[in-house]
């Protein structure tokens, strides 16, 4: 029997020196160098990343945060939540309310009320909208609203020990129900058009390159911060417990841990962080509508994680980048093929590459080792013949 490779101890170092380097370098490039090049170089310069590129990367960064949340729940804790897009969209809506109020009288109808309210014949701003004039209130709502929904749902679901596919289906039903609600005009959040035509954030013009650059940097920093936070969560005892719950929840229960509370903690935390990502996403794409919270969107985020490699923290980020880059290429080059591509990705990854893209190097390495150990044997065999 071969001796298994030494597995990580219960308290590994947070990062080795090499890991710090490989974390800080890309963070620095993305958060500092690219925006500086964008700001300083003339428009036609070869090295200058375009405004469009930065905006795209900023969007991808918020997607990556969403994917990291899916992965923390699925890859580490074993909860396949199909409702993560709901939390993303709720954060987006909460911040969208603030952005909508910040339009002021610059809307189509030149009214204090948001355009869709004028259109639907509102006489005054509903009372629950008033506090969203305050940026800090909206920012708090971005965290609290998704967390609250996640808490109520998670508390009920985890205490009655709903798990596995049953939990997946219920989360899917939750986000489906929420999307149906938001699609309705009389629910009061703009119906299927949602919120759009935002003008400014914190007094800055949303269309100016400076503001867009700022949003991009904020997204990258959020991603880096969330990466570090999740890294901290998944190491040491808490991380081991999460994986133990994933592999055998009952055993953890009989070891004296209230697993429902662990699940609830992670579920709520991830919901809040996903909400922040959604809040940063909305001003960058300029619109939020209920199609962002459909089960399809959640499943798309799951495919990012599956393609990148679940149970790792780098995998979901790679997956979100790869699949979305593929998507923006495919929807331009061959829109009718996109559903086949993403459907095929689901199937291929599940059947042939459960570890995702991130497991490919190791696969190649072991394949290479096998090949090399076989080759001399074959040679000697041939020589002896």
């Amino acid at each position: 029997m071969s001796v298994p490779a030494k597995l990580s101890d219960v308290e590994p170092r947070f990062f080795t020196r090499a890991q710090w380097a490989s974390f800080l370098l890309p963070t620095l490039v993305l958060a500092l160098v690219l925006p500086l090049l964008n700001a300083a170089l003339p428009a036609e310069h070869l090295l200058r990343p375009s405004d469009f590129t930065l905006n795209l990367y900023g969007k991808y960064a918020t997607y990556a945060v969403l994917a990291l949340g899916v992965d923390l729940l699925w890859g580490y804790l074993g909860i396949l939540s199909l409702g993560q897009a709901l939390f993303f969209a709720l954060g987006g809506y909460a911040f969208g309310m603030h952005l909508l109020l910040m339009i002021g009288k610059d809307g189509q109808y030149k009214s204090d009320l948001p355009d869709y309210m004028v259109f639907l014949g509102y006489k005054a701003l509903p009372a629950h909208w008033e506090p969203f004039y305050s940026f800090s209130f909206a920012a708090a709502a971005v965290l609290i609203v998704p967390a609250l929904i996640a808490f109520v749902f998670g508390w009920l679901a985890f205490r009655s020990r709903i798990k596995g596919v049953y939990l997946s289906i219920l989360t899917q039903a939750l986000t489906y129900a929420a999307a149906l609600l938001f699609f309705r005009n009389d629910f009061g959040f703009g119906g299927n058009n949602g919120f759009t035509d935002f003008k400014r954030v914190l007094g800055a013009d949303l269309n100016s390159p400076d503001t867009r650059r700022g949003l991009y940097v904020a997204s990258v920093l959020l991603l880096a911060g969330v990466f570090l936070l999740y890294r901290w969560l998944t190491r040491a005892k808490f991380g081991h417990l999460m994986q133990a719950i994933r592999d055998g929840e009952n055993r953890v229960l009989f070891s004296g841990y209230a697993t429902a509370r662990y699940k609830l903690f992670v579920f709520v935390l991830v919901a809040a962080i996903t909400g922040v990502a959604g809040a940063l996403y909305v001003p960058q794409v300029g619109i939020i509508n209920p199609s962002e919270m459909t089960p399809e969107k959640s499943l798309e985020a799951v495919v990012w994680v599956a393609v990148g490699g679940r149970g790792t923290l780098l995998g979901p980020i790679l997956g979100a980048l790869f699949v979305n880059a593929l998507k923006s290429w495919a929807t331009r080059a061959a829109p009718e093929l996109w559903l086949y591509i993403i459907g095929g990705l689901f199937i291929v990854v599940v059947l042939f590459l459960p570890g995702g893209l991130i497991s490919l190097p190791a696969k190649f390495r072991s394949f290479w080792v096998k090949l090399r150990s076989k080759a001399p044997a074959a040679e000697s065999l041939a020589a002896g013949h």
Partner: protein
Amino acid sequence: MSHPILQAEDVTKTFDGFRAINALNFYLFPGELRTVIGPNGAGKSTFFDLLTGRAKPDTGGIEYSPVPDTPATDLTKLNEYEIQRLGIGRKFQTPSVFAEHTVFTNLVLSLKGPRGVFASLFHRLDSAARDRLDALLKLVRLDDKRHWKAGLLSHGEKQWLEIGMLLASEPRVLLVDEPAAGMTDEETHRTGELLLSLAGKHSIVVVEHDMSFVKQISINGQVTVLHQGSVLCEGKFDDVQSHPKVREVYLGRGKN
């Protein structure tokens, strides 16, 4: 006689009309090593399920009083982790270890200590805990495999690891379900010695089929025979073995 640390009175549990446990009375006294035997389907595992909160009795009460002269705790109202935290640990019939974790981590997760979310987030191993883990690893003879994935251990080693995990949580009461299954004779004998050495400090209930093992560990203690969900007889190993009813329902059938 001293007050029982664990008592089950008139406990009944049915599954879809089948009476797995039927008006069962059971008393465990502090420091005792009790062996429970019985044919398959006698209700041994269900009995453990009831004691550990995995199943709730239909009728009857289960009480736990670790400290004499204090009010007893009603275990039927508590769930698995609450009962574990009270000091009742269980080893399962098929070894259940965290297969994807190392032997060392398995023990760390089982170590006695605060079990809350935030305690786990900010948990650090102090040197006393490390010493205790080293001692446990030596005791269960997995010192040289501490970095192995637990899933790669042999069946007997997993049994040992689970016993180690049980001890790491420092329970007052140990419920041990078929510890010798899958072990060599030598390992079985050592397990018996370990259990005998733990008796006195801990109160132990062992469910076992292997009669030579039962004979070994019941040298000072009582043997309880379960049959069709209730106690058939109780007593010293030799008395039980010669009991006509026991021979009829259990040993007699075992010989065929």
